[in-house]
C-alpha cells in the first residue's frame, strides 16, 4: 500500500494559533482510519487541514502528492475533486433535491448531466434512498441526510473520504447503516476512509487503524 497522506512535524490551527502541534502520521491507500479523541482535541482541525480548509502553520502535510503548506487555491480545488467529505451536519444544499445534491461532485468534474443522474440514482438505491430522490434535505431525517451525504461523497470514486463525526446524533440503526456504507466504499471501491469520532464503534467488522489525539498531540495506534 502506498502512502496517501504524510504529516511531518505538522502544526495546524487558526489565526497562527496551533491546535495540533508537531504531529507525525501516515495514511496509506485503502486504509480505514479512525481519528479519535475527546471533544476539542483537534479531530475536526485535522480533517479540515486534509482538505485545505485549515491552514498548515508549520511543517509538512502531503495529501496525494500535493504539499498543503502554502498550496495555491487552484491546486486545492484540484485536490478536492479527488476527495469526498462527509460532515456531522451533512452540508447538503437545501434548495437542491437529494438527487441533485448527490450529483454535485460529478457535475463539478464536468461529467454530463444524464450520466451523473444515472449514477446518482444507482447510489441512492444502494443507500436505500431511491424513494426520496425528489425530496429536499429538510424533508429527510438525519440518518437519511447522512446517507445521501455519503452517496455524494463516493459518487465520483474519490481517493479518500474524510468524515467528521458522521454518526454522532444518529440513532443506532442509522449509525450502523452509515458505517456499513463506509465499509462498502472501502471494500468495493478501495477508497481510503478517515473517520473522526470521539469513540470507536462497539462492533466493527473491518480491520482499521486508529490515530488518537490528546491535548494537541497525535498518537498512531495500531
Amino acid at each position, binding site marked *: 500500500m502506498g502512502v496517501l497522506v504524510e504529516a511531518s512535524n505538522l502544526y495546524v490551527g487558526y489565526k497562527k494559533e496551533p491546535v495540533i502541534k508537531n504531529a507525525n502520521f501516515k495514511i496509506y491507500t485503502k486504509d480505514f482510519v479512525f481519528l479519535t479523541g475527546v471533544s476539542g482535541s483537534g479531530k475536526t482541525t485535522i480533517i479540515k487541514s486534509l482538505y485545505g480548509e485549515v491552514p498548515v502553520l508549520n511543517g509538512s502535510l502531503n495529501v496525494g502528492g500535493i504539499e498543503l503548506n502554502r498550496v495555491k487555491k487552484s491546486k486545492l480545488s484540484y*485536490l*478536492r475533486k479527488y476527495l469526498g*467529505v462527509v460532515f456531522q451536519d451533512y452540508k447538503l444544499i437545501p434548495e437542491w433535491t437529494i438527487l441533485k445534491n448527490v450529483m454535485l461532485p460529478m457535475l463539478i468534474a464536468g461529467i454530463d448531466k444524464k450520466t451523473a443522474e444515472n449514477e446518482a440514482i444507482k447510489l441512492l438505491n444502494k443507500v436505500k434512498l431511491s424513494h426520496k430522490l425528489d425530496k429536499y434535505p429538510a424533508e429527510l431525517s438525519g440518518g437519511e441526510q447522512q446517507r445521501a451525504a455519503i452517496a455524494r461523497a463516493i459518487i465520483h470514486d474519490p481517493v479518500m473520504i474524510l468524515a467528521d463525526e458522521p454518526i454522532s446524533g444518529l440513532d443506532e440503526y442509522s449509525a450502523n447503516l452509515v458505517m456499513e456504507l463506509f465499509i462498502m466504499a472501502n471494500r468495493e471501491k478501495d477508497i481510503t476512509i478517515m473517520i473522526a469520532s470521539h469513540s470507536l464503534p462497539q462492533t466493527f467488522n473491518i480491520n482499521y487503524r486508529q490515530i488518537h489525539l490528546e491535548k494537541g498531540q497525535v498518537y498512531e495506534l495500531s
Partner: protein
Amino acid sequence: MNSLKSHAALILALVSILVSIFLFRLFNNVLQQYQQNILNNYSIVIVSEKELGRIDIKEIDKVEKIDISGQINHMKRKFKNLNLDSIKMPYFYRLRLKTLPSPNKLNEIEETLKSYPYIKRVLTYRSSQTKIYNLLMLLKITSNLFMVIIAVLGFLLIIKQLEVWKLQHNERMYIMELFGAPFWFRGAALFKIALIDSVIALLLTLSLIWYVQNSIMYKTVLNDLSITLNMNLQKEFLILLVVSLSISLVSSIVVVIGRNR
C-alpha cells in the same frame, strides 16, 4: 416569495440606474439641440470702419456682412435733401459664434472686439443672452443632479442586494467549494439570476422609454421648442444593455469572490 422580492430589488435598482442614464443622455441631447437653436438665432453685431474678411477670435465661427443698401435707399427716399452718397458709410457685420457663450466669455469677446481700432461699436444683446444662458445652465445642473441622485439610490439598492445575495448563496457556494468547484460553477446560479434580471430591467426601461417617447406631452414639448432629437436609439439600446449586464454581472462576481470563509 423571497426569491421574487430578491429579483424585484435588483430589477428596480437596475431600472432606476438605466432610466437615469438614459434621461441624462436625453436631457443633454435636448439641451444641446436647444442651445444650438438659440445659437442659430444669436449673433453679435459690429460696426467697422473698414471692410473685414475674418476676425481672429477662436469663439467666432462666421463673419457675415449685413447688407444695408435697403436701409440707405429707404433713407434716401425719406430725407431727399440729404446727399447720402457723399457720406462714407461704415460696414456692418453679424458674428456667428461656435457655442453659446457664458456671460464672462461674452464679456471677453466684447472687450477683444472693442480693442480693434477700426471697430466702432459692438452690440452683444447681453441681457437677454445672459438670461437664456443662465436658464439653460440651471436646467442642465438640476436635471443632472436629479439623475445622479437616482443613480446613487440605484447603486445603494444594489449594495443592499449584494448583502442579500451573500446570505442566500453563501452556504451553497461553500459546499461547492469543498468539492473543488471552479469559480464559474460556484457562481453559475448567481450569474444566471444576474443575466435574467438585467435583461428584464432592460426591457422594462425600454418600455418606459418607448411610452415616454410616444406620449403626446413629450412630442408637444419637443415640437414647441423646435427640437428634433438627434439620438441613435440603437446606440442607446447598446449602451443600456452593456451597463445593465456589467452592473449585474460585476455584482454577482463580487458576491462569489467575497464569499465569507
